[in-house]
Every structure is written in structure tokens, then in C-alpha cells.
């Protein structure tokens, strides 16, 4: 069963309005209508669960950051939580973060990750992280990418984390999860062992995950949100408006989320994200996200593969969607045509001519007939 169900338009509006008090308060909505504000951001802090750490609600996802000055800039603006991992850039990301920490350790909480392995390997991994980060203690160590209950409750891993804590290598322990998040979060709560959890959470998230987040917060686990922008294409015809701030504000409406870790590689991205602090989710944000959500829902294939093998003529609708993703989403017609050629899409679409319209229905409401027609046009042009 798919874990992250799509959120219906009605549900989306209900959820945004429920917390979007700003809709009823004209001056708040007006303040948000300007998009980026001019005055310096008002830094907002929340407590990261039972760790007691006072973290800025906008943290720093460093996974792709190559220039340490970008991190310095964020810290100057009040960001105080940095997330990295031992495997990002094969360890180089921790080295980059370390060049910042060596002079600003007191300004910063550092979170990194370790993979489940033998106790010896996990200890060695965290020792390497300490060295690369140029610090004598890591504030938060997270088991990387838990996908099921058994991972979260893995005794070897929990013993290793406990040992790290006792040796003074780390202060607090947690885990990250991308898949089966509800199951993993509930296991974390049940264990009573973890201080925090890093979860995928955005305006597109399954409401069940939101409920699990609430349970985690109630149990004293700090909640850090990642993938707050819901993915999707970079290029959208949304005028001069960016969905990033609205998406971040939507996440921060939830008081159970202590901080977020948007990935940032430039000064401009830092400015854009940090400006969200101290502002409230408003009417313009709700409208913008609804529009962005529609784009994600109706223009973008999620590659859930549920349509696979459903076409009676054997047409691979996954390939059709992939060709369109390259052509329309990335604007790379060459790649689209090459993919169509490699996958034999042109040939299989010959069989497709037998049906007057596509007999397969997309669970997410993509108009498959229209998409098949578009690809037929494309591959026709190729021929």
C-alpha cells in the first residue's frame, strides 16, 4: 500500500484553514502579501522535544552545500541548527560543515547521521564524524533512513547509540525516516529511547503522518521536518512568486515541528528561507500552495507504478510519463526523444492506436489519454 496518500483539495483547504488563522486577520495576510519582507528576519526558536535545545525554526540542510560561507551567512542571520550526514559527499560535507564549526561551535547545534552496522563500525563512523566536524561532541546523532519498525528497534544500533552517549561523543539520539514513516515514528515512541526524529513533512504529506508527528511530540520526541518543499519541478509558471516560502510557512504552522532543514547552497536561498521566520501562513500562501499542489497533482507523474501492466495493449505508461517528464518538466527534448527511442515507446504506441481513449485510469488523476497523445506527437516528430 502506498504510504503517502495524496491530499484532496477539500482536505488541503481544510487543513490550511484550520491553522491559517491569518486568513481571518487582515493585517497578517497583508504582511505576507509582499512575499519577501525588507526588515531583518525575527528569529523564532522552538524546543526540540526532550533535548531541551532551543533551535531556530529554520535550520540548515547542508547536504549539497559546497561553500562554507553560505553556512556562515545563515548563522549570522540566527540559524543555529545544521543537519549533515557521514555519507553526504562521502564525508566531505561534514568536512565543509567542520570548517564553520571550528570557529562557531558555540553558536550552533550540529546533527549528523550514522548507518546501522555492527557496534564497532558505528563507533568508528561517529569517531570519523567528530574528526571531520572538528568538534568534540555531536549534539544529535541520527540513525540514517529507518524504513521499518525493526530498524528503529534494532538492539545493536540502540546499544551503539547508548555507548556513544556514555562516551560523550553525542548528546542526544534520534533517527531519520523516509519510508513507512508512521510505523517508524510509532516504534520510536514505543521504544522511549529516542530524543528526536527527522521526518518528511510538507503540505503534500499524508495526514496520518501529521498525526504520528503529534504523537511523537506528545511523547517528548523533538520533530525535525525535511523535504518541506514537496519536491516537484523547479520551473513552474507561477509568475514572480516562489512556493518555497509558502511551503515552509505551511510546515511551521504545526507547533509539533521544532525545526526544518531546507537544503541551501546559496546566500539567496538562505535569505529566502530565513525570511520566513516570524511570519505567519496567510491567504496568499494558501492560494499559492493550492495552485502549486494542483500542478504537482495533475501535471506530474509520481511514478508510483500502479499503472504498470494495466494497459491491455502492453503500452508502458510509465515510459510515456517519463518521456513527458523529460520533455515538459526538464525542457530536455533531446533526452525525451532518446528515452522514447531506447524504451521503444514509438513502437509500443503503434499498438495503442487500437483504443479510442486510454483505458487505464491514473490513481492520481493524470489525464493519461492526453499524455499518450502528447507522446505520440513527440515520437511522430522524431520519426
Amino acid at each position, binding site marked *: 500500500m502506498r504510504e503517502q496518500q495524496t491530499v484532496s483539495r477539500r482536505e488541503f483547504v481544510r487543513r490550511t484553514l484550520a491553522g491559517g488563522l491569518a486568513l481571518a486577520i487582515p493585517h497578517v495576510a497583508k504582511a505576507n502579501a509582499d512575499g519577501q519582507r525588507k526588515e531583518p528576519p525575527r528569529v523564532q526558536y522552538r524546543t526540540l522535544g526532550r533535548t531541551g535545545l532551543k533551535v531556530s525554526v529554520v535550520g540548515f540542510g547542508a547536504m549539497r552545500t559546497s561553500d562554507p560561507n553560505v553556512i556562515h551567512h545563515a548563522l549570522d542571520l540566527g540559524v543555529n541548527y545544521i543537519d549533515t550526514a557521514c*555519507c553526504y559527499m562521502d564525508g566531505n560535507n561534514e568536512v565543509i560543515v567542520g570548517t564553520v564549526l571550528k570557529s562557531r561551535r558555540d553558536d550552533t547545534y550540529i546533527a549528523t547521521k550514522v548507518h546501522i552496522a555492527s557496534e564497532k563500525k558505528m563507533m568508528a563512523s561517529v569517531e570519523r564524524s567528530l574528526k571531520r566536524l572538528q568538534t568534540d561532541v555531536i549534539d544529535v546523532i541520527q540513525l540514517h533512513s529507518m524504513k521499518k519498525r525493526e530498524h528503529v528497534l534494532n538492539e545493536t544500533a540502540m546499544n551503539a547509540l547508548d555507548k556513544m552517549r556514555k562516551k560523550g561523543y553525542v548528546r542526544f539520539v534520534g533517527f531519520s525516516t523516509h519510508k513507512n514513516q508512521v510505523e517508524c515514528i510509532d516504534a520510536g515512541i514505543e521504544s522511549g529511547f529516542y530524543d528526536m526524529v527527522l521526518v518528511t513533512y510538507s503540505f503534500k504529506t499524508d495526514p496520518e503522518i501529521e498525526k504520528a508527528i503529534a504523537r511523537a511530540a506528545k511523547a517528548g520526541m523533538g520533530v525535525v521536518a525535511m523535504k518541506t518543499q514537496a519536491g516537484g519541478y523547479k520551473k513552474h509558471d507561477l509568475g514572480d512568486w516562489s512556493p518555497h516560502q509558502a511551503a515552509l510557512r505551511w510546515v511551521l504552522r504545526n507547533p509539533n515541528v521544532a525545526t526544518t532543514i531546507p537544503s541551501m547552497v*546559496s546566500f539567496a536561498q538562505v535569505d529566502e528561507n530565513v525570511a520566513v521566520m516570524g511570519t505567519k501562513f496567510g491567504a496568499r500562501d494558501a492560494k499559492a500552495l493550492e495552485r502549486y499542489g494542483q500542478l504537482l497533482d495533475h501535471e506530474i507523474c509520481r511514478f508510483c507504478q500502479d499503472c504498470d501492466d494495466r494497459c*491491455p495493449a502492453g503500452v508502458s505508461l510509465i515510459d510515456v510519463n517519463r518521456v513527458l517528464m523529460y520533455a515538459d518538466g526538464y525542457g530536455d527534448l533531446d533526452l525525451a526523444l532518446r528515452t522514447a527511442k531506447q524504451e521503444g515507446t514509438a513502437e509500443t504506441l503503434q*499498438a495503442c492506436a487500437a483504443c479510442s481513449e486510454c483505458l487505464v485510469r491514473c490513481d492520481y488523476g493524470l489525464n493519461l489519454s492526453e499524455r499518450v497523445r502528447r507522446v505520440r506527437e513527440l515520437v511522430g516528430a522524431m520519426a
Partner: protein
Amino acid sequence: MRRWQLTFVFGFVLVLVRAQVLEASGSDSLAAFLPEVTGWRLAEPPETYTPDNLFDYIDGNAELYLSYGFRRLVSAMYVPEQGSEDEAIVVDVYDQGTPLGAFGLYSSMCRPGLTYGEVGCEAIVSPLQVRFWQDRYEVEINGADESQAELLEKFARSVSAKLPRCGEIPELKWLPEDGQVPHTLKYVADGFLGQDFLPGGFEAKYRVHGTVVTAFVTQCSTEDSARSCLHRYVGALEKFKGAVAKQDGRFWGVAHKYVGHVWVSVEGPWLYGARCETEASAARVVAERLRERLREIAGMRR
């Protein structure tokens, strides 16, 4: 039977035949690069990932691969003909779209002190992993335990033999090789020097009388555009409280406790410079050397 039914059946048969041919020949372009090593077999059919589901495979790490132009991944698990899955070796072949994308991704993982090998254009070799780049592909071979180190290289060489040969990337010559600290040359595709407005660029470390200096260069569309980028970049560094920026000859210099000492200038369409944590003079030496190099290249282009 009606005509449309005949067409349907004919089409269906065509599809089936083609699918079988594909399966037999392994004509999926990436799967064709998978290794063949005596005594080892595929544990299960290879899996393919695209930009939309790469997160499912490598989680948050996917963002880095995407920023370097990731297009597709084929991932295959091999097990010994006579042995258990505990000894599995996983082969991942990433199509990064261009040789520069593959080099950029690979270079983001490089640093001095690792062990490098001669597989593909270059490889990072450790007891548990061989990672190399070749043409537009970045390949990662992961073992189950350290006793498999030699075997990993064997797998890597088998993949390498099937990939297109290494070509030359002219941009990698922009930064002078003389004095360059080995394995520090990097291509940064996104957020070069921390700025959205700059195109992707290159950086490498140099030693000047024992001091480490980082040189950097990117190419803008025109000289005017490079000048505009220069002023925006200096402006961005001046955002740091207490940063001092001044013009000295053809260079702009910025000094700050976080930034260190930076010299930056423009040569034709190139924006280039050098930074050093401790010594402004060392950074200037490298910046001047880089200018000479770029002028040489410009001369060769004419």
C-alpha cells in the same frame, strides 16, 4: 474478427515479442554496462531509478546527484554462484547526463588522503567500495565486507570495459596543474561560491610556501556579464559584518574572519580568483598565476 480487434491482437503480439527480445539481449542501455564476473550471478533483476524516485534508493543524498544532472540509475545485486547473500556485491551505474556531471559528482567525494586507483578516468578505492567516473557515468561498487576488496576492483574493471572511453573535458584545464594539490580539483554545479547567479565553476587547492590557497574560476556568457557577477559576488561577501572590500589593481580584495582573504577579478568571460584563510599575499600569488593561465587559454582560442 473486426479490424480494430485484429490490430489490437497484432500489436499485443508485437509488444510481447519485443519484450522478450529486450529481456534476452539486455538492451536497456544502462543494464548493458553491468559487469560479468565468473562465479557471480545477479541475485534479482536490476532496478532502475529516475530523478523522481532516486530518493527511494539513496534518500537525502539524491539531491547531490540531481544537482549534477542525474538522469538514470541501474542498480544490481550480485551473489556468488555457490554462496550466500551475505556476500552480495551491489553495483550502481549512475548516468549523470554529461562527462562534466559525472566528474562533478565524483569530485565532490574526493579529498586528499583517500586511496585512488586507475579504474575508469579515476577511482576512489576502499576495502568496502570502489567508486569511479568514466564518460558520463559515475559507478559505485559496494561490498559486504573488507575481504572483498580485490573482487570489487574486478567488478569495477568489468563495468569500465563496457563504458565509453574517457574523453577530455577542456574546462578541467582552466586551473593550472602546476602546484595543484592532488585530488582537490572540483566542479561545483549548483551554488558555486555560494551564489545562485553564477554558473557552475571549478576550484582546487594549491600550496604556497606551506600555506593552502583555494583557486576558483567560472565562465560567464560575456565579459560584461562576468563584471556584473564580480560586483555581485563582492557585494555578497561584504554582507558579512566587518568585511572590508577594496580594489587593488585589476583585483578586488575582501578580508573577513570567516571568508579569509579573497582576491577576485575578471579575464574575458572568466570570473576567477583565490582565497586563503591566513595570508592575503599567498592568495594573490595564486590569483595572478591563474590569470596567466586563463590568458594562455584565451590566446590558444584565438
